[in-house]
């Protein structure tokens, strides 16, 4: 019995793929590097570390959903555009109505765009890359026109406390939103049938269909999830910044996808990791933070980020194609 148990452990260890852990190694490496070089600039300070968590929360929330989207073999380019529109709608509705109604409206925008994306992809059998490229344009345009490029302020203190700057003891409330999204996402992805079906659809839609999985329902669901996550991210931005503007989420699409892919999710479907996406998201946030502390200008930051991203992808994804 003991021998067979040991054999089982050995086979399981052999199945562990080293590249799955590269993201953790890269994370630690960069963390130690910043800790050593930026010690005097307060990188390791309590406030700074919590700031990284606070700033990455919307990215983390979206990254969790994008793990499902990419694992299912789809992509959602409208993510960042939905952030802007959802945020503006939330802030705008809150000016004349209750916060609850505003939140519902904001989430409704995200879910609505997700449903439309999903229906075009499933009912008309179109590639999600093109469908969401188009919806990204439409949503961005609507976001810019409804407020005439004006920012909208939010004064509801309770809303700001819950979704933004509030704390629970010493821990920022935003950390709980990120944690909640990750725990729920990881559970559904790894331990529920839905997660298994998402991965199967992305791996081989043909095999999934032959096995009786309702492939189109799964696809529709990941787009709704994606839209809803962008809306939640928008609400969290609106809470933290106490207002919304059409520029929110502009840079987020690529950051989110980078975080997810570095975290071990396959860009072409069939494999994913929510925990990896969390670490990827924190890694991206830490990079920005460290580079700012280093005193790099925003243009220099972009260059450094690109180089590091290339490095990280080379380490995590090398040799995976064609397998």
């Amino acid at each position, binding site marked *: 019995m003991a021998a067979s148990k040991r054999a089982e452990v050995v*086979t*399981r260890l052999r*199945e562990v793929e080293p590249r799955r852990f590269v993201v953790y190694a890269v994370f630690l490496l960069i963390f130690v590097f910043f800790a050593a070089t930026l010690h005097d600039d307060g990188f390791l300070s309590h406030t700074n570390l919590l700031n990284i968590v606070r700033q990455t929360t919307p990215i983390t929330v979206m990254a969790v959903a994008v793990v499902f989207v990419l694992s299912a073999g789809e992509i959602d380019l409208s993510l960042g555009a939905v952030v802007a529109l959802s945020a503006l709608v939330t802030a705008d509705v809150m000016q004349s109505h209750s916060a609850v109604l505003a939140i519902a409206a904001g989430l409704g925008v995200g879910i609505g765009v997700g449903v439309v994306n999903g229906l075009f992809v499933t009912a008309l059998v179109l590639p999600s890359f093109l469908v969401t490229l188009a919806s990204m344009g439409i949503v961005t345009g609507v976001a810019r026109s409804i407020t005439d490029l004006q920012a909208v302020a939010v004064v509801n203190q309770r809303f700001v406390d819950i979704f933004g700057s509030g704390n629970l003891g010493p821990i920022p409330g935003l950390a709980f939103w990120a944690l909640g999204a990750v725990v729920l996402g990881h*559970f559904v992805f*790894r*331990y*529920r*049938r839905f*997660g*298994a*079906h998402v*991965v*199967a659809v992305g*791996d*081989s839609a*043909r*095999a*999934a*269909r*032959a*096995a*009786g*999985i309702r492939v189109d329902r799964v696809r529709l669901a990941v787009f709704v999830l994606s839209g809803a996550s962008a809306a939640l991210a928008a609400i969290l931005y609106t809470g933290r910044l106490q207002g919304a503007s059409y520029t929110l989420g502009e840079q987020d699409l690529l950051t989110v996808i980078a975080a997810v892919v570095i975290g071990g999710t*396959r860009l072409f479907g*069939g*494999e994913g990791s929510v925990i990896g996406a969390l670490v990827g998201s924190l890694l991206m946030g830490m990079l920005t933070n460290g580079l700012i502390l280093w005193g790099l200008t925003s243009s220099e930051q972009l260059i450094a980020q690109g180089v590091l991203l290339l490095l990280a992808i080379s380490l995590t994804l090398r040799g995976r194609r064609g*397998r």
Partner: protein
Amino acid sequence: MPLVRVEHLRKEFGAVVAVDGMTLDADGGEVVALVGDNGAGKSTVVNCLAGVYPPTSGRILLDGATVQFPHPLEARRQGIEAVFQDLALADLQPVYMNMFLGRELVRGPLRRLDRETMSAETQRLLDDLDVRIDSPRKTIRDLSGGQRQAVAIARAVHWAQRLVLMDEPTASLGVAETQRVEELIRRLRDRGTAILLISHSLDQVFGLADRICVLRRGKQVGIRTAAQTTGEEIVAMITGLV
């Protein structure tokens, strides 16, 4: 009463008649081969029985009762499983997930996937069928062609109550692997399942089948008992040079 009966099965795709009136019985513990040239309509018959397409006319009877399959799930619910030519496996997933794809086991109030039980049951099934795979947790892409074929067949065996459809189960395999798969088909037959086998290899057909049904351009040319016919006769029936 035959376990499975196909009666006057006809399938049209627009103006093309893929299968034109086929009638065939299969009993438990029997291997019936379906042979014919390319485009003879063999795969169409398999797809009708698996619930992939509805027949244009004709009936399918299970234990004497007429059934209809509006969706592949319904065929599976009635105990019919198919091993398709492309195997329909998800390559990046472990063997046990493929075995339970779409019918995953869950446990507890949170309905968590029961990976341990699925893995253990897969191991038992593979042992049962004498399929050699290191671990049910291996991913499909790490298996050989023969092992993949064995997984697809084992899955069909596990779920099929009545009939297993096999479309060219050894087309892509080497000699040794083909022998193992043929051995697997024999063991499956001995368990009392009806098997409908499509194969291009007449050697294989004569080695495995009890009866042989020949199709030519969608029409049923005839059914022969394997022990009472010859390769020459079957070839003549396939090519129409009778």
